[in-house]
């Protein structure tokens, strides 16, 4: 049985900082977008109001705490119904009285569900879920800023948050209440409900996503029948994000939940889970906005490895397949993730991937971007990695030697050059014989490489010549054929002429 481990015990009202990604280190010191940023405003938006056809006037109900026990449930129910009325928050002065009544009612509901026992009886479940659905489920408004960059821009905040927050708080308390009965809830918190809940993770408002994260985690923990469905729908969201829209605000939050779900996977891993790793988690690395959720993603990947070491090869080969070609910032992130992986890799698994891996690392060391080269060279400061390298020196040194040798002579950045000298020195100490052999054969290898290069060029040149000749002869052939056909036609029409031609 899978048991999700606990998320960091965070009340969403105090957002966790555990996973916060340092906002992209500015490499070049230039502000990345100039003028437009100057007058960013914190905008508010809400799609919620439209469907309220006629506005109902709210009248305050008696307080729950004053209600006689016999009437408590009835009053609770009435308050839930009252809270189904939606208000226009874009017009901040509209119906202030009504808003205040609803706010007070929500507050009371939150407090009641959190503190008093025995409130949650069966007839209240559909009413509570209805109130929650009416309030939170809505089509999220279009982003006010079409090229919203979560790292740089202020998010659009949900205008109706003063009510929405209390509704989320109520939902959370409801799920966490000791009286909460999954067997009753599952009739109302069904697949359709969960699907709509997941769509809300696209909200631009980080406060809302924080609540959703905790709530979904509770739902996953308590309603066992929905687990497979939740995982499948998260897959779909990720696949749409990767292959269709490249846009979804809640990737980091969903990954955070998954991180704890993976932790609870039973062994051996089901093929569904392996497929999730290979076809969803690894491809997530291709996203343009990787920096926003990379910490959570790397955490999930490492979780998988720690569960089952045999997935290591899939992971490393996957990362190598999607290795960034032009974005150095992402390259640094990949290198960071590789180091996290190497930190926990099993030596037997390391041997399976060392060859392609160190070819890539060599390529990174020769990157003209010094942060990439530096990040790769830092691997040699990691004792565990160093011990793996030492054990496999015979394989690894020949893979990286040429690069180290060349870059030590060519790199523009002195820090890199001195880091490389250190690495070379380490290798010399590890295996001086091999090191000397490689130094001696370096020039010969270079020559061989050049020769191969020339041979390739020659091959292609002659292939293309041949193609040219063939196309020509093809062209000639078709011309001849055409001539022949025409002559045949002519000969039918004018037999005398063709006879003359033939002679």
């Amino acid at each position, binding site marked *: 049985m899978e048991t999700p481990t606990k998320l960091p015990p965070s009340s969403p009202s105090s957002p966790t900082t555990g996973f916060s990604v340092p906002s992209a280190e500015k490499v070049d010191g230039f502000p990345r977008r100039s003028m437009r940023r100057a007058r960013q405003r914190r905008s508010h938006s809400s799609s919620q109001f439209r469907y309220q056809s006629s506005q109902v006037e709210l009248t305050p109900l008696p307080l729950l705490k004053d209600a006689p026990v016999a009437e408590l449930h009835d009053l609770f129910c009435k308050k839930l119904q009252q809270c189904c009325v939606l208000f226009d928050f874009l017009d901040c002065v509209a119906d202030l009285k009504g808003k205040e009544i609803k706010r007070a009612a929500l507050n009371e509901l939150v407090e009641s569900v959190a503190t008093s026992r025995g409130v949650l009886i069966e007839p209240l479940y559909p009413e509570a879920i209805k109130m929650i659905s009416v309030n939170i489920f809505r089509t999220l408004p279009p982003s006010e800023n079409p090229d919203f960059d979560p790292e740089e821009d202020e998010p659009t905040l949900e205008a109706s948050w003063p009510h929405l927050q209390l509704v989320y708080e109520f939902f959370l308390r409801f799920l966490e209440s000791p009286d909460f009965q999954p067997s009753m809830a599952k009739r109302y918190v069904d697949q359709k409900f969960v699907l709509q809940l997941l769509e809300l993770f696209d909200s631009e408002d980080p406060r809302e996503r924080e609540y959703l994260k905790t709530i979904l985690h509770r739902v996953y923990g308590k309603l066992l029948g929905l687990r497979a469905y939740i995982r499948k729908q998260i897959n*779909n969201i990720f696949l749409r994000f990767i292959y269709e829209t490249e846009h979804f605000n809640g990737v980091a939050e969903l990954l955070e939940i998954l991180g704890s779900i993976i932790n609870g996977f039973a062994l051996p891993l089901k093929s569904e889970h392996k497929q999730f790793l290979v076809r969803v988690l690894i491809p997530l690395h291709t996203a343009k906005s990787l920096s926003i959720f990379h910490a959570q993603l790397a955490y999930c990947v490492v979780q998988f490895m720690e569960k089952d070491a045999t997935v290591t090869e899939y992971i490393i080969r996957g990362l190598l397949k999607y290795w960034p070609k032009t974005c150095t910032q992402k390259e640094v992130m990949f290198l960071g993730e590789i180091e996290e992986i190497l930190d926990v890799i099993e030596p037997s698994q390391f041997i399976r991937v060392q060859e392609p891996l160190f070819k890539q690392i060599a390529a990174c060391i020769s990157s003209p971007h010094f942060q990439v080269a530096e990040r790769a060279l830092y691997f040699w400061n990691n004792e565990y990695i160093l011990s793996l390298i030492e054990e496999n020196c015979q394989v690894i040194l020949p893979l990286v030697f040429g690069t180290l040798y060349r870059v030590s002579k060519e790199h523009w950045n002195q820090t890199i050059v001195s880091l490389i000298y250190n690495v070379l020195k380490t290798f010399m100490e590890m295996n001086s014989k091999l090191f000397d052999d490689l130094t001696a054969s370096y020039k010969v290898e270079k020559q061989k490489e050049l020769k191969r290069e020339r041979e*390739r060029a020659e091959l292609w040149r*002659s*292939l293309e010549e*041949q193609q040219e000749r063939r196309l020509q002869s093809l062209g000639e052939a078709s011309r001849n054929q055409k001539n022949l056909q025409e002559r045949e036609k002519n000969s039918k029409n004018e037999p005398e002429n063709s006879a003359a031609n033939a002679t």
Partner: protein
Amino acid sequence: SAGSCHSVSSSGMAGADGDDSLYPIAVLIDELRNEDVQLRLNSIKKLSTIALALGVERTRTELLPFLTDTIYDEDEVLLALAEQLGNFTMLVGGPEYVHCLLPPLESLATVEETVVRDKAVESLRKISHEHSPVDLEVHFEPLVKRLASGDWFTSRTSACGLFSVCYPRVSSTVKAEIRQHFRNLCSDDTPMVRRAAASKLGEFAKVLELEYVKSDIISLFTALASDEQDSVRLLAVEACVSIATLLPQEDLETLVMPTLRQAAEDKSWRVRYMVADKFSELQKAVGPEITKNDLVPAFQNLLKDCEAEVRAAAANKVKEFCENLPEDSRETIIMTHILPCVKELVSDTNQHVKSALASVIMGLSTILGKDNTIEHLLPLFLAQLKDECPEVRLNIISNLDCVNEVIGIRQLSQSLLPAIVELAEDAKWRVRLAIIEYMPLLAGQLGVEFFDEKLNSLCMAWLVDHVYAIREAATCNLTKLVEKFGAEWAQNTIVPKVLGMANDPNYLHRMTTLFCINALSEACGQEITTKHMLPVVLKMSNDQVANVRFNVAKSLQKIGPVLDSNCLQTEVKPVLEKLAADQDIDVKYFAQEAISVLALA
């Protein structure tokens, strides 16, 4: 070798020369396996060369199996491969053998990366036409079926794009199977597949027999249009256009309209946006009667939608919608139903909405005629000309020609001027640039008198703008004005001011003089150029700033062809020779270039 024997027998083209054996497949395949991605990519892009070298038979028996079995590569390489294979028919021996290309394309159609898959599907669609009807049933259709029932969503997604190319050319039994597969994919478990199916629904409907459009397609359409995901529902709206076009008018009301009405009122703004965006197409597809009864109120609602995105999309369609209204009731509908909404949009809170409206609103004047335009539209134009957002004003100004035809621009000119002046001085240089581009048009419509009086000074002021792009555009603008108003006008109004800048203390302004002369000399003609411009240019050859001096050389090269040969020899040549001996290397270079281009050496 055995290989070369095969290829000689296979076709005429391989017989042309017998040197295939020079290139054992191993060498070529080595190239396709090179460690360096870039080299692999280069090889794949030249796959046709390799195939040609191998000949058709070895391409079929050795190269294609290799590609099918062993290529697991970077998406970039796969993309190139998918594209190449679409053009491979001749290289495998013509249509007779085209089915050999199916196995590699089939596996490419199942990969994760969308661009690769889409390219594979595109190539499959392409080569489907080269299959004979028999081959289509024996080879192609089974492939489509395999894809349609694949485990992973990618293959099912790819299948969606292949139904419509084989359906028309297969037997009725197979047709029934294809319809069944399409039905299954429309109700697939994964939204990705439903989206792919929804996006191909219109295309598939077009190749189906009408009875099946009515029985199959309509129910699929209705189901997709009420999918739980809005990303699926909005694709159904697109299909709606094709489906409505296929059905006879009398069936539209019962088969299509309930769904369309529901889409126009969908709770997701994305779906409503799609309806607004496709409104003109929908209008044409459903015909005038339904337009009058249903689409007019729907359009009104979209213009009043609570989401700005939707209002903007609808505002964009105002002109087209009005144009396509049935003539008998067009004016009434516009005046009573559309115009009131348009009036409200003029003062919308969202600038994208206003600017979308401003880009089409002027088009209404031709539809409504002079009196209505003056009475009802003019106040709206004027209001938009005063809008706080420069884009709105620009859009109005850029469409002035429509109004000009109906009521003449004079009606507007009093309001136009302040708007133009304000845009001309806008803090954003892109706004200034945009208004400069409309100057020749405005000048033509407002006439020379109005121009001289009100706009000329603006045009001259742009020449000393602090942004180069504006100065450049201003220079170009002058040329167009001269083309419009003639050389005499140029000599009297522009040339003196341009030449005056030659003495400006700022070298950038002095250079602007030269740029203007470059641009104007041809339009002004030989006389003005020789008499007024040339002396100034020659004098500037003594400028102390080297950039000015080498621009003198460039200018002389440019205006040389306008001058007569005597003048070139006596006046231009000495100056260029002097510049060719300048101590600045760039001045020398451009002087020498001018000397050789003008053949003065």
